[in-house]
Structure formats: C-alpha cells, structure tokens
C-alpha cells in the first residue's frame, strides 16, 4: 500500500462515461495497462435520538482491500477511523435500533483501474443514491509510504495526464499527515471527504473544486 492521492476531475457539461473514456484514452496512451475494475462504496448511519447527541458512522468498502470494512465515526469534534473485517456489516445490522442508515446517501465510486510502472490509476464515476455526481481520479504510488516524500512526484505524474486540471496542493486531509506512514484508511478518509462534498452538492454541473 503506497501513498494515494484522490482528486476530483471537473465534469463541464459532459457525461460521466465520456470523461472516463477520455481519461482512459489519455492514460493508455502513456502506456498504462487496464487491470480490471474497482469500487469504493460508502453507507452512512446516524444515531437515534435516544442515544444522546448526534453521531454518524460511515461504513466504507474498497475493492482494493476486499476483506476489510472501514468505519469512520464522526462525533462532531473528531473522526475516529476503524479498520475491521467483513462481519462488521452484520454488526451494523444488529445495531439498527441505535444507528439507522440514511438510504438516500449511499455513495459509490466505480470504474476502470490501470497500472503503469509503479503507479496505479483508478478512474471512478461517483454516484450518490444512483445519481451521477462527478468523477474522482485516484493515483497510487505503490513503493512509497510517506506522502511528504513523494508528493511532488505524484503531482508531476498527475499533471502528466490531467494537464492543468491536476492538483497543485495535497488533499486537505493529508496536509497535516504528510510525514506519517500512509495506510489504506487514509485513502478511505479522502474518499469520505469527497463523498461528503458530493452529497451536499445538488448536481454534477455545479461542483466546485475542493481546493
């Protein structure tokens, strides 16, 4: 698991498949090899009033870590990450009288996955309760585990195929974690950040870039 940077690609009056197609062509021209599909999904549960103040649990799955379930608990003041295994979903069902899922907010990002050198590129079209919301580009540089060391390198790579639309600053989530060892849950937190933005935005056309 290496450092992963997630960025949003502006839609600009195109459909999701069109953008994915465009980016796929660009990355393939650089010599990337398609390596299957990927899927990241997120379901959100919020606490019942009887449990005191409002808390939210986001449960995310990433096809890159198929046996792991990620849960992020938002208390309002902080976010607590938890990595656990597949049966956690079963436990969430048991907890249904304390934490109820908000059906309208099921978000997922899915699409093709490419490998090029030591990089892994994923182009995901994001849907929130099956409405298309936008496109997320994920770039992972597998050999390196400290974001600060390889940020410039990844940025250069992303600008290579996203052009001027590539990111110029690290994602806000990573900004104060640049010297830490990167772990899969950090990717998940980036996804959650973007999903939250997408949920708030009314439609695909009006998305602001998160920076």
């Amino acid at each position, binding site marked *: *698991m290496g450092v992963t940077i997630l960025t949003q690609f502006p839609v600009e009056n195109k459909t999701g498949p069109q953008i994915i197609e465009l980016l796929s062509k660009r990355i393939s021209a650089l*010599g990337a090899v398609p390596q299957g599909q990927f899927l990241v999904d997120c379901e959100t549960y919020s606490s019942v009033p009887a449990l005191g103040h409002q808390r939210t649990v986001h449960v995310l799955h990433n096809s890159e870590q198929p046996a792991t379930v990620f849960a992020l608990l938002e208390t309002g003041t902080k976010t607590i990450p938890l990595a656990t295994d597949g049966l956690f979903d079963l436990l969430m069902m048991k907890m249904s009288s304390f934490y109820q899922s908000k059906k309208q907010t099921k978000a997922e990002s899915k699409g093709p996955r490419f490998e090029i*050198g*030591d990089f892994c590129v994923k182009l995901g079209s994001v849907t929130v309760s099956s409405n298309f919301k936008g496109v997320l580009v994920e770039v992972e*540089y597998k*050999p390196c585990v400290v974001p600060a*060391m390889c940020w410039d390198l990844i940025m250069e790579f992303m600008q290579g195929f996203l052009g001027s639309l590539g990111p110029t600053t690290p994602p806000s989530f990573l900004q104060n974690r640049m010297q830490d060892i990167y772990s899969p849950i950090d990717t998940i937190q980036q996804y959650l950040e973007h999903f939250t933005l997408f949920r708030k935005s009314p439609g695909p056309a009006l998305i602001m870039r998160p920076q």
Partner: protein
Amino acid sequence: MERDIEQLNSALNSVKILRSNVRCVFESVSNGLRADHGEESKESKYILELQELLTIVNNNLRDVENSVGNLTPPPGAFSLGNTTYLSQETTQERQQLYGQLVNSYKWTDKIREYSALAGNMLAANSFNKTYKTYSTTKRRKTQTSNHNVPPEIIENLITSIDRLFTDVTITAKRPFVPNPLIQVALGRVLRAVIAFKGLMIEWVVVKALSEDNDLWTESRYKVFRKVTENCHAAMCHFHSPMMPELAVRSFMHWFHSYITLFSAPCKRCSKHLQSNLPPTWRDLRSLEPYHEECK
C-alpha cells in the same frame, strides 16, 4: 598398491561380464524357441545358439579365474581403527553410523582431490594484479585477506557505519559467522539486504519496507529493482581488494544518497519522472540524482 587396485578393478570387471553373460544364457533358456529361429530345423538352431552362449560363459569364467589368480591376497586383516567396533554395535540408531562414515570419507576424499586440482590450476595461472608488484615484506604484513577476517572486525565496521548515519538503521544477522547478512533500512524510503563475504560486499537487494527480507527474491516494484541493479554496479565500482573497509564505507556513503529517492528531481532534466520512474541513479562521486536516461 596402484597395481593391486588395477588388478582388483579388472577382476571386478570380469566378474561383471560373467554375470551379464550368464544372464543371457538364462534369458535364452527361459524364452525357449523363438520366431526368429525360423520354421525348419529350429531345434538344432536353438541348440547351436545355446552352445555359443555357453562357450562365451566358459571363456568368461576362465578370465575370472585368471584375474583372481593374479590378485595378491591382502596382508592380514584391514585395520579400520575404531570403526571396526561399529559393526558390533547393537543399538539400532548407531548401526546407521557406518554408512554415514563411509559417505563422509568419500566426501573428504573428493574434496582433497578437487582442491589439489584447483591448487594446480591456480599455481599455473597466478593473479598478476598490480598491487602485488610493489608489495614489499613490510606491506605484506599489513595486508589483510578481505574474505577471511575475524568477525569482530566486521562487527566494528558495521557498528561504525550504523553510527555514521542517523537515519540508517542496521540489523545484523549471522547465519554463518564470518559472513554477516545485514538489513539496512534507509529512513522510511527503502530497505536493503546486504550479504557480506568477510569484508567484501557480496550481494545487495533493495526492497520496499513492507516487503519480506529474503535475500534472493527481488522487489515487486520496478523502482527498487532498478535501484538494486544500480547497487550492483556501484558495489563493483567501489570494490577494492586493498582497502576493503574503505570500499564498504564509500559504498554505504553512496547508498545513503538514496534517502532522497522519491523526493529529489533529476539533476539534468529537473523532473521527477522519466518513464514513470524517479531518478534511480546516483552519481558515484557527486551523489547527485539522475534518471537512467539522463546520466
């Protein structure tokens, strides 16, 4: 002695021939009449064949008798030393010992033979390295063999290297005492497994921190495979039989420059990536980063 063995060999050989021909006779007898004897007068043909075979056997038998007659009987019993008592051993496990003893004897014998051969070869083609020419008697005293050194010296070298760089952590393992195997973790960038042969660097493999520290499998990442390659080149470059410690030190100095593997751009093209790899080459003198294509 030499002749005795020759004769013994020829006797054994003739016994072997006799056995093989006797086998032929039995084979023919057990098969009886065959199709290739034809239709007419097959019995007489068969008898003729049998007679021929028997004559051969007879001749062979004579040979055996002759060669046995030539053998000189051994003077008295063989002295096997203490091994004779092994045959009288009653415990099951120790009865195996005799076989093992014979095997190890054979091995040592072979080693002696091969080393004698190798010694001859080396004597014939001596190394005429330059340093030998001006090696005076004084010099010879200080000159150390660099593959057969006491472990303490290597130990000292490794600890001194460990102290040299703060961001390098070295863990040493000694599967074979004089030839340590060390793992060098370079910050949080990479890890190298280095095998020593005495004071010489014998093998280097570079991997990600998360990969296993096996010496023989290469990294799954392209960048580390490239770095491994370059390390091999540098290892040869820095090698100096005269000053082995210095060689190791300068190699480690050079290797330490990889701490910026991901963060430093190429000195020539000032870019990070070239064919999706960071600058994997470090100049041997200036330690500056270059892409493979830019150096």
